[in-house]
């Protein structure tokens, strides 16, 4: 029975990682950059939702929409102010800028909301948990919603990139920026759109993350951000189903390693598995191997 409950915790944690990883993978796919502040956008999303429910008394679903709107605007602003001027700069310059933006967001949150942790009220607090086998096994509403939302987002994004015009433009930009521009695709607009979608996903991830693990502080997003980035690499960065698979596997490995091997070594085990996977499949589980033409 405890195995089943570990499995459920793992799936729920993994789905949160997966949603965050989707944001990383989309931005990496089109802009070919590591959007390190993604984890901090999650934190901002969670704070907005917290403020909307706790201070302004808005219903939970409105707070989610408010968080999505604010994060989308924030994502586009970050992209426009920090990354657009560096479009042709070296990847290292972009990376350093990304780290700077990440610190900026964390410290801005520290100034606005203070350092004392806040307890996030779950947006699903009105739902009852499912209790099975004479109360031996509990499935929280957060776990169910997180898994379902994760699958829906994955299906939505796959359809978007394969069926719609904008989605196809995104794929074109990800394959060859120069050629896409020659074909009449507005590269800048496509990248901005990717950031907008990625940041909206970050807001959803923030609300789900803090509903499941309710302490909220300015550093809330950084550790899940790093884990989700690992998940994206694990599944093959740039691949949407890969991010989802990577996220869920990472969550399961983390929880099961904690339960059956050691609570102290769980993170080490997660990263050891990552190293082994990358040694065997350098492009990640579902990543495409691209041979460079010389």
């Amino acid at each position, binding site marked *: 029975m405890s195995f089943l409950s570990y499995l459920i915790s793992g799936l729920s944690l993994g789905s949160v990682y997966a949603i965050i990883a989707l944001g990383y993978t989309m931005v990496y796919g089109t802009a070919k950059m590591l959007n390190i502040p993604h984890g901090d956008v999650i934190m901002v999303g969670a704070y907005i939702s917290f403020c909307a429910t706790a201070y302004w008394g808005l219903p939970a679903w409105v707070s989610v929409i408010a968080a999505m709107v604010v994060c989308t605007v924030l994502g586009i602003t970050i992209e426009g102010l920090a990354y657009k001027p560096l479009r042709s700069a070296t990847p290292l310059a972009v990376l350093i800028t990304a780290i700077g933006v990440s610190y900026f967001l964390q410290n801005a949150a520290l100034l606005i909301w203070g350092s004392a942790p806040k307890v996030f009220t779950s947006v699903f607090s009105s739902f009852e*948990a499912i209790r099975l086998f004479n109360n031996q096994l*509990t499935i929280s509403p957060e776990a169910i919603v997180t898994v379902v939302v994760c699958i829906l987002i994955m299906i939505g994004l796959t359809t978007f990139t394969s069926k719609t015009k904008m989605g196809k433009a995104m794929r074109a930009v990800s394959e060859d920026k120069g050629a896409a521009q020659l074909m009449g695709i507005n590269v800048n607009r496509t990248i901005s759109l990717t950031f907008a979608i990625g940041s909206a996903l970050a807001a959803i991830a923030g609300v789900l993350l803090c509903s499941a693990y309710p302490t909220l502080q300015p550093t809330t997003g950084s550790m899940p951000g790093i884990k989700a980035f690992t998940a994206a690499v694990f599944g093959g960065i740039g691949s949407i189903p890969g991010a989802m698979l990577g996220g869920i596997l990472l969550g399961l490995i983390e929880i099961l390693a904690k339960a059956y091997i050691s609570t102290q070594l769980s993170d080490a085990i997660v990263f050891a598995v990552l190293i082994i996977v990358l040694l065997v499949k350098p492009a990640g589980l579902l990543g495409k191997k691209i041979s460079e033409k010389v």
Partner: protein
Amino acid sequence: MTKKKFLCILLALVVVCCMCVACGNQDNTDDTTDTTTPTGTTEASVIKIGGIGPVTGSAAVYGSSVKAGMEIAVEEVNALGGAIQFDLNFQDDEHDAEKSVNAYHNLKDWNAQILVGSVTTSPCIAVAAETYADRMFQLTPSASSPDVLTDKDNVFQLCFSDPSQGITSAEYIYNNELATKVAAIYNNGDAYSTGIYDAFKARADELGLEVVYSGTFPDDTTTDFSVQLTAAKDAGAELIFLPIYYTPASLIMQQAKDMNYEPIFFGVDGMDGILTLEGFDVTLAEGVMLLTPFNAWDDDEKVVSFVTKYEKKYGSTPNQFAADGYDCVWALYNACVANNITAEMTASEICEILIDAFTGGFTYSGLTGTDMTWSETGEVSKLPVVRIIQDGVYVDL
């Protein structure tokens, strides 16, 4: 070319302006840190007290509480208008050892004569090495590890030590038969948490209290405790000992409730603050037991007066850290008065006098205990008191 020259001059001007503004800011911050400049007569001797603690960062609650408690005590001392006045300068260390040492150097430049701090353990260990070398008297309100005191005759604690918390907890649980099977969840990346757990485990083994499960987590940003709680539940633990800070503890209570698991939670002094956590559902903490030397809901005259002043000035209920800070200032004041210390003395002269006083039978009664005395090592004689949370307030047992 002229355009370029113009730009250069403009740039130079901007740089100069920025520097002026920066200097101006510097002055401003200096002014604001000295908020409690005494208003007494000029003849009174003003002793400079330095304070160090985290006012920002993850442990900000502790530092800001100590700072607030100290400010109230300094105001009271200065309002007495006696021969000794205090001037307080409290520096932020963000719960970081290196920043704490920097803060100490700032205070030395300011000519601080006595140090209260650091508030948290690891920074305090780093600062203690410096004060020992410089011969400055140091009284920490809340750094509870014995490592703070090791081989340093000038460092004293106002709080009870980590091992005594672990031992008291084990004895209390055993003597009151709270549970036969006990689990513990602690942060093995933190000296404070591990120190209490080790003492607890050793004492529990001696007493024959069965510790059926010990779970660890690596740092205070950990959010998932489902594995540890499931294991504790499967092991049949009726009580979970939590020698940790209140932020992870709040998550553990939430997740245990979600799992339909209702053990008794037994915390230590790090649990203090859980009721003031913003957004926290206080019903989760109903029946939680914790060690705290200070009860803000006590009807003792001194406590009521302190709590009223604190609530009026800061708009919140003080925790034990605020009370510890308050007691530090008053203990120092009493010791200074009793030993005729004046502001003209150097830090090292004051240090030697205070060491003799504190180890020579000086007693102090304050908010966090009565008739406290200090041992040669610097440890205070103050026993941890177990209190229980009922209807959102602490209740004596």
